[in-house]
């Protein structure tokens, strides 16, 4: 700490466009100017605009102040522009504090005298805190232009291609024997005439030919460590051989699990899954035939039984119903809770299907199933035909029922979550750092998640996500180095007991416990010579400076550089 006699504090009073003028009157300015260490006190109407702030800093240079206290609104209004300004003015960007009299006083205290007292107290505390500020430096890590994409499905392929085209070297990892994933199960796209297989082959070939992409197949993920610019992924191939792949950033693209519904009656041969239907349509000449060669006259699509809010089933059912209806003798039912048309162009297809004679039946209560002479009887309480009573108003006899699959969170997610340290909420889909502000960016800097491991989505949506994740990586790797403020946690290894509390609570996997020295002060009786003293260490590029580890450290070995204990006790103290 610098003694308050040595430091020179410049106070800027922001009237927030006149809304604080009643509080920050002449008497207040006089009071502020008289506080110890204050060398100047300037006023302005609206400091939150960067231009005004810049003007004031001109005065800052003249006053030769070394710290700044802004009296006005929320710190968020000033932080960013002030930090940028501080850098150009040769002043450390962290040598500033905000006394938030707008939210804490003007909006909450209505009695004028009490409000003034409170405002004075807040400003005085801030001015008292200012001498405790310490300059915070910046650090750089090298970010070589290479990335790792985990998962060789369509999402992984798209992400790899996008990155490779931006001149970033990509290693594409997949557990399967070849890249491609599940997309090949489709026969047609719902919204464009191209057939899937030629599109698929083009994408896969594109990856294999690209000079910036290296593909590693049949590899299992075994370990993951490092930080932005230096991630190291441990792999094991099918022969049990281990290897390490390096990358500056990582995109994780695991699809969701799709399980055919074969419980109970759904195991009967009359019930098939959508991929089986796609295969039948691919192979069918003109009309569908069963194994014995008898024509299939009635087909029902049964959707929304398990996953009520997934639009993939609905889109596929409408698409396949239209294909089936090319044979006019075929009767097609779509039995669903809601027809999901929230895809581009879907409403039109839904209407076309109805015009062609596809019958849409909607239910609220689960239908009943029975077998009648080798055909399936589906009894439905149709919502629009129910005129009172509780009977099953419709019974549909069909030769073939296509039961939609269960979309479940990938079982791998648990493994991925534990290896990569990405949080896994109850519903089983991987979670980004903040679902609103940092979509797809995981808790570790430089790790992105995209596709079905976030939630089940259509191919188009997942591909857009892949591109967006690639853009996140491109932005991080666009410069030679990644520069960040050292406003982070710091662990004193002399105090650390290596209790492993902090690595567990850290939401960003930024703390590792490693060997620190050759002796262990905690073993007092019987000193073992070969015992290594371990201590926790913060990986600076990973740390977001949130302070969770600081509050949970039992030995008080961790400090937050930009928010020390001394500063906090001054804020909450008298």
């Amino acid at each position, binding site marked *: 700490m610098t003694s308050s006699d040595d430091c020179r504090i410049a106070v800027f009073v922001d009237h927030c466009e006149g809304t604080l003028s009643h509080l920050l009157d002449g008497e207040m300015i006089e009071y502020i100017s008289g506080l110890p260490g204050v060398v100047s006190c300037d006023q302005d109407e609206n400091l939150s605009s960067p231009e005004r702030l810049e003007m004031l800093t001109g005065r800052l240079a003249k006053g030769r102040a070394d710290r700044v206290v802004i009296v006005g609104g929320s710190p968020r209004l000033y932080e960013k522009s002030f930090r940028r300004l501080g850098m150009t003015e040769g002043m450390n960007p962290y040598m500033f504090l905000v006394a938030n009299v707008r939210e804490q006083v003007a909006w909450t205290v209505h009695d004028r005298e009490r409000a003034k007292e409170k405002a004075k107290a807040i400003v005085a505390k801030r001015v008292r805190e200012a001498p405790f500020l310490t300059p915070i430096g910046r650090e750089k890590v090298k970010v070589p232009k290479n990335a790792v994409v985990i998962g060789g499905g369509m999402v992984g392929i798209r992400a790899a291609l996008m990155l490779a085209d931006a001149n970033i070297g990509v290693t594409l990892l997949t557990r399967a024997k070849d890249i491609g994933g599940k997309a090949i199960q489709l026969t047609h796209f719902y919204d464009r005439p191209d057939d899937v297989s030629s599109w698929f082959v083009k994408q896969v070939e594109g990856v294999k030919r690209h000079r910036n992409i290296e593909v590693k197949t049949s590899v299992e993920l075994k370990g993951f460590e490092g930080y932005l610019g230096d991630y190291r992924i441990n792999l094991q191939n099918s022969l049990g051989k281990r290897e390490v792949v390096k990358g500056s950033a990582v995109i994780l693209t695991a699809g969701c699990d799709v399980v055919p519904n074969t419980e109970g009656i759904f195991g009967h041969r009359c019930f098939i899954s959508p991929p089986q239907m796609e295969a039948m349509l691919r192979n069918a000449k003109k009309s569908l035939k069963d194994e014995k060669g008898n024509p299939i006259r009635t087909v029902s699509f049964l959707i929304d039984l398990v996953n009520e809010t997934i639009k993939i089933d609905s889109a596929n059912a409408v698409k396949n119903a239209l294909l089936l209806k090319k044979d006019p003798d075929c009767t097609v039912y779509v039995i669903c809770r809601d027809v999901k048309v*929230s895809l581009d162009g879907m409403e039109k297809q839904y209407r076309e299907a109805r015009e062609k004679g596809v019958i849409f039946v909607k239910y609220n209560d689960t239908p009943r199933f029975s077998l009648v002479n080798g055909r399936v009887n589906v009894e439905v309480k149709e919502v629009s035909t129910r005129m009172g009573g509780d009977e099953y108003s419709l019974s549909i006899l069909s030769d073939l029922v296509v039961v939609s699959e269960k979309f479940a969170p990938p079982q791998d997610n648990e493994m991925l979550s534990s290896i990569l340290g990405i949080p896994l909420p109850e519903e089983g889909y991987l979670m980004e750092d903040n679902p609103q502000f940092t979509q797809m960016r995981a808790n570790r800097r430089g790790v992105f998640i995209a596709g079905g491991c976030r939630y089940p989505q259509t191919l188009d949506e997942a591909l857009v996500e892949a591109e967006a994740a690639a853009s996140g990586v491109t932005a991080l790797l666009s410069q030679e180095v990644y520069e960040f403020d050292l406003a982070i946690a710091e662990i004193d290894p002399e105090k650390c007991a290596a209790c492993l509390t902090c690595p567990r609570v850290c939401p960003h996997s930024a703390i590792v416990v490693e060997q620190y020295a050759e002796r262990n002060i905690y073993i007092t009786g019987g000193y073992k010579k070969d015992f290594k003293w371990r201590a926790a260490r913060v990986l600076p590029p990973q740390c977001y400076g949130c302070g969770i580890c600081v509050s949970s450290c039992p030995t008080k070995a961790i400090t937050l550089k930009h928010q020390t204990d001394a500063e906090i006790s001054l804020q909450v103290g008298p």
Partner: protein
Amino acid sequence: MRGRHILIIGGGIAGVTAALELAEMGIPSTIVERENRLGGRASVFACKASEKCNKCFACVVDNQIQEVTRTPQVKIMTRTTLEGVSGKPGRFKAQVQSNGGKTLLEASALLVATGVDFFDARCKPEYGYGMFQNVITAQDLDEMLRSTGGVYRPSDGKIPSKIAFFQCVGSRDETIGHLWCSKVCCAYALRFMKAIRHQNPEIQTSFFYIDIQPLGRSFQSLLQSCRQDEGMRLIRSLPSKIYGRRTSTDLRMRFIDPVSGEIVEEGFDLIVLSIGMTPRQDADSIAQVLQIPKNEEGFYRSPPENSGIFLSGACKGPRDIANSIIDTKSTAQKIIQYLGGM
């Protein structure tokens, strides 16, 4: 990277996100916005949190706008319109007009993020919007919630006791030729109901719909919590007409009750129309200037990749804030690809 500059047309959430994303990649850009402020349609939305965040993304918009005004690589021109574009892909010269003055801007690529219009509920006279004071659109409700922090009846300023939400006003409607789903309105209205019921559990809400359309990651839990709430009725039936008197606050309608199967008449004292999205009225003028193809509905279709013109956000078709942001990020990557990498 030198000499690259992107011109972004439209300063809504898509345009603003694009500018920020490009700035992070080290590419400067200029946003041309017709109105006098950034944010577009999304900037009037209010937070719809109940006991927990309902993921409406309204706060993200405010955050992005604040962020972009403080990003030095982004030049913002409000009250400015695009007049014409000359030059060839990679070296566009765009003429813009602001406050009567004309400026020539050079750009390596153009990003169109002009967004959508909301459906004008007056085009469905049977719902009486504009005639009955207590029939409002969801956007009116949003502005009310944002400015006053509560829900009130426009006729007398009292808190309503029964609110009905009508879905698909201006979407999925052949009578007005709108054969598309606006995608966002179901989740939007359900979030509204959650927020209103949380603020005032006395208010009974009803949700009249055709099909519930899922949207985004947490929709299942949102829908489930709505179904469990007894003060929220989800009714699969769209009333065709609203009956009311100009002087009375009571609005009546008839619909088929899906439980009993009978036609019932019920009164509400506030009716909220969930209006859909339509292509912008001036979509043609920009489409002509830039030669952007359009689909049957009137939304833009992506021009060929080598044209140097990119689209993002809802001008391609209805989209919510979350999807507009993801879509814009993906477009930023396509621009990088077009510019030949980093």
